[in-house]
């Protein structure tokens, strides 16, 4: 969900996604390449994101990812689910 969310603002390469997640979660989540790349490839195969080759800020060839329509839908689904879960957990914790 976080990866999808990080792509809402626009296309990014792997490192960009990683840094963006760090930034939006105030450093709570640091996505290591060992989890990042498998997740990206899986999501690409699911059709949630699409990939293309582009140039990075300092003129390096890098693989960029972009959110697809299906990805946007998926993000809504995940957001909604997460909302339910966190609400439920919060409820559970508040209940004595």
């Amino acid at each position, binding site marked *: 969900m976080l990866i999808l969310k990080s792509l809402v603002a626009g296309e990014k390469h792997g490192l960009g996604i990683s840094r963006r997640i760090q930034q939006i979660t105030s450093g709570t989540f640091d996505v290591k390449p060992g989890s990042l*790349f498998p997740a990206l*490839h899986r999501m690409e*195969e699911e059709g949630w994101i699409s990939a293309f080759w582009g140039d990075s800020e300092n003129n390096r060839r*890098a693989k960029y990812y972009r959110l697809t329509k299906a990805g946007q839908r998926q993000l809504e689904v995940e957001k909604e689910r997460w909302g339910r879960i966190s609400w439920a957990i919060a409820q559970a914790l508040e209940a004595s």
Partner: protein
Amino acid sequence: MPLVAKARSFFRNLLFSGRVESDLDEEVRAHLEMLTDENIRRGMSPAEARRAARIELGGLDRVKEQVHEVQIGNWLHSVFSDCRFAFRQFRKSPGFTAIAVLTLALGIGANSAVFNVVNRVLLHPLPYPESDQLVALWLDAPGAGGLASLTSGLQLSPSMYITFSDHNQTFQSMGIWTSGRANVTGVGQPEEVRTEVVSDGTLQTLEVPPLLGRWFSHADQDPRGSKTVMLSYGYWERRFGGDPGVVGRMVQVDAQPREIVGVMPRGFRMVDQDFDLLIPMGVDRVHQKLAPFGYDGIARLKHGTLLAQANADIARLIPVWMDSWSNGPGTNPHYYERWRITPNFHSLKQQVIGNISSVLWVVMSIVGVVLLIACTNIANLMLVRAESRQLELSIRAALGAGRGRIARQLLVESVVVSLTGGTLAVGVAYAGLQLLVAAGPADLPRLSEISLDLRSLAFTFLLSIFSGLFFGSIPIWRYVRAGRSKMLAEGNRTATTGRARQRSRNTLVIAQVAMALVLLVSATLMIRTFAALRTVEPGFSHPANVQTMRISIPETLIPNPLLVTRMQNSIADQIAAIPGVSTVGFSSAVPMGGADPNWDELSVEGKTYEGGEPPIRMFNYVSPGYFKALGTRMVAGRDFTWADIYGLRPMVIISENLARESWGSPVAAVGKRVRQFSSMPWQEVIGVVEDVRVHGVDKDAPPIIYWPAMLNDPYTAKPTIDGPNSVTFVIRSERAGEQEFITKLQDAVWSVNSDLPLASIRTMQEIYSRTMARTSFTLVMLAIAGSMGLALSIIGIYGVISYAVSRRTREIGIRLALGAQKHELRWMFVRSALALTSFGIAVGLIAASALVRLMKALLFGVSPLDPWTFITVPLLLAAASVLASHIPARRASRLDPMVALRYE
């Protein structure tokens, strides 16, 4: 949409794996570079920056591997690489691979060949539309004596057919038919062809449309109507070259001109009979008697009707039938109540398959057991191999390969072997089928339809996979379960083999020996059956020197029975004049020829019968010299002479068992009198001949009455001469079976009448062997399977013992150094082999004693639990195991202690 994306990725991953891979590589590298750049920007030195980036990334290949694991189609990829690895493994050990693949090819091939036959013969429907609706009409008649028991019941009479087809409520259509022979003249050489005489309703029941022309119409079935005929596809091709304009042409069938009205399509058979011509029966619907009961009935059930309902329907009609017809003035139409006739219909398929299914299932289980033995053998080899690869497997496990991953690798290796074997098996199956078709019993139905089809190929494929999984899972079960730490510990080759592992190999050997024992016991029982059959006196002698052939003189050619007999007599005289012929005679039918001449009542003078009716006996009609030519001994009295025949003297010859039954001894029978029924004059018994097993060596000889080849028809009011029109000549000569001799016979026959074809030219030996075909076929199959089983278990025992020797080399060295005697060492290994074998024998004996009961129908003159067999076979196996273990044991005892100790 996601599905499309997934499928696209799947194919991309599979087909462009190279590009996907380089993309991934570049992506991860770019990531590393960017991390480095970032670090440099933070003020690190380039070297430091690179190091920090690498640490954060955590290893290029590891990341790539992690991506691989989530990629779609990854599973398939790694199976491919397992396969590649397997092939590399097998290239390293070609000997092992060749043995495994060949064993499997034979085992699987034999199974697919037999499955093919089983599939075609037992599982496939008959080649008629909606063939499950077809019913063979047989009746039960426990009171009818031999007339009914000789076949699987009582056949129909034309009057029954008329009553049943007119009044039944359960059948769509019904017909009767009978197989026969007819002489076709006017088209090239005179030829005797196979005919099927069919009543109205028969073709309508089978529902197979003609290829050309039309079926017989109702008008064709009128006995006074036009004379028509239909051709089989084969006859049409052979005689008319497949001429499409054949419909409408005339042929002479038994000197009767008939118009060809149609041709049946290729592959059409009359139930289980191949034929040349279909001839309308022309049942006279008015002038019928209750008898004769010689017709096969066939019918098509109405939709949704059960056999039981049909049986009840016809049971209701049997009294109607007796009320509607009679056997002539003065006879009691309700006489047949004594026969207790009840319908016993079964499906046509059951009729066609008959009791051949027992042979087929026995053969199927035989080859199944052979495959099982082969698989156990390979499993054993695999175990040994897995053991020698212990270190490799341990290292793989230590490097992080999961149990599942190693298990899959081993399974993939097994399946690769079994699939290679399976591919070769198709060839083996094809060759095996040719063999089956060539050597199979003559009564194996529908053999001509057998060919390798998709279903058998699928069977072969599945069988290969399953056998691969079977023998592959045994080593896995042992090794993957054993756990990693243990594997590493035991990988050290200096340790003596773990007991657990030795035990699993021993279990396999025990199973092998047990299965081989079952096969060998069955094979030995069949050999003993065969031997028992060979010693049976069939009632004729030196069958290889007896030539038989049938000559039919159609009534339409020579209507006068006296002239028919004279012509048969002069043919016999002409044949007798051929050099090398010692005797010649003829009769209505020869023993084991497949057809019974006649059955009827026979009463013995002075004897009263229970219920007032004498039992039904088999009749045959013979010429002078017939017994001598066949080699059937005269036990008492004398043979007929031609003077007896032409003088129409009231005489008969009877079989020895009938003489003993009626008068106590053959000599006492001579001069006594018998007759068919009260209005017939008494006939004097002039001779007694030995019993003849006319239905095959494994069937008891029935009592037979031999009438002269010409006699007064007992059923007509005033004496009328009668005799068989179709007779089989029996010629004793050293030259029987030679082509030149047959040409001489043909000249002799044609010198009397050139329109007479010679048919069924066979030696008695051929007829005799054919009745043994089923036994010899099962025997050959079992003998092959038994010897394969024996050979495989010898290899199995040898393998286990020689492996044990190689594992215990150090121990042997120590024993030898400590002064162990060589013969003691040898005995130690032979003893362990014998212990395994005894276990196997014990298990096998239990299994065999249960399984051989299934073979009971195939055995003759030997009990299923024949003690001789059950003692010899275990001894044979024990001897084989001593032999197999002796070789490695001797190798062990010859070891130099110094070499042995340095062995590791």
